[in-house]
């Protein structure tokens, strides 16, 4: 699997969520994703970037374009926040500890091909999503 490019974007302010959306759109479009697939991955990135900011207290997103047997876009969101004590519960629709709809994590999962979340309480959370073309 060859790595076409890799880039890290900060997520510390609200404006960064908009920057993440724009950049992910550019990546997905440059990889030749269909409009629907672009929209799905940008929406998933928007949800996860907001989680990183609100629940993780800020962090970053790494974007990697993968090229091998398949072309794909992998996005890794990392923060050093309080972590998620019960990931299964956090993935459930409607569950939230904030003021949102509780659709962010589970919703993002439905919009991508692969989804991985690892979290340690008191240390932080990492969510990796991949959308294959």
């Amino acid at each position, binding site marked *: 699997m060859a790595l076409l490019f890799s880039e890290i974007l900060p997520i510390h302010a*609200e*404006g960064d*969520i*908009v920057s993440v*959306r*724009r950049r992910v*759109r550019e990546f997905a479009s440059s990889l030749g994703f269909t*409009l*629907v697939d*672009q*929209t*799905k991955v*940008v*929406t998933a990135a*928007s*949800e996860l970037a*907001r989680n990183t900011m609100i629940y993780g207290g800020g962090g970053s997103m790494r974007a990697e374009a993968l090229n091998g047997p398949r072309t794909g876009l992998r996005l890794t969101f990392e923060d050093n926040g309080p972590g998620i004590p019960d990931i299964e519960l956090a993935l459930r*629709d409607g569950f939230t500890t904030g003021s*949102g*709809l509780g*659709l*962010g994590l*589970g*919703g*993002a999962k*439905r*919009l991508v091909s692969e989804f991985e979340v690892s979290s340690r309480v008191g240390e932080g959370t990492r969510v990796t999503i991949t959308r294959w073309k």
Partner: protein
Amino acid sequence: MEKIPILRMGNFLLVTIQVDMHDRLAMALQEDLTQMISDTEARGVLIDISSLEIVDSFIGRMLGNIAAMSRVLDAETVVVGMQPAVAITLVELGLSLAGVRTALNVDAGMELLKTAV
């Protein structure tokens, strides 16, 4: 701070969202609209989202809130112009915008408002 302009046309308020919405802008729109409905005694609100490239759960919630708040203030809301890719993504995300009237374009939305109020 940038703001989303709200136009008044007779009994109706028209909003065209043409910028990439960040969360605070969405919150401000919610407050500005409810204030303006109350000030102008508007009976309908039309929100054109044809320029929006995504609607995530936050923006979706804002649209739902605006519809609910307008209803409480005796005004109807219709959201028009959603791009097909946005509609597909929104439903897969888990949001169906229940309680929000929608129409394909501004013309259809205005017709809907006229018959609703």
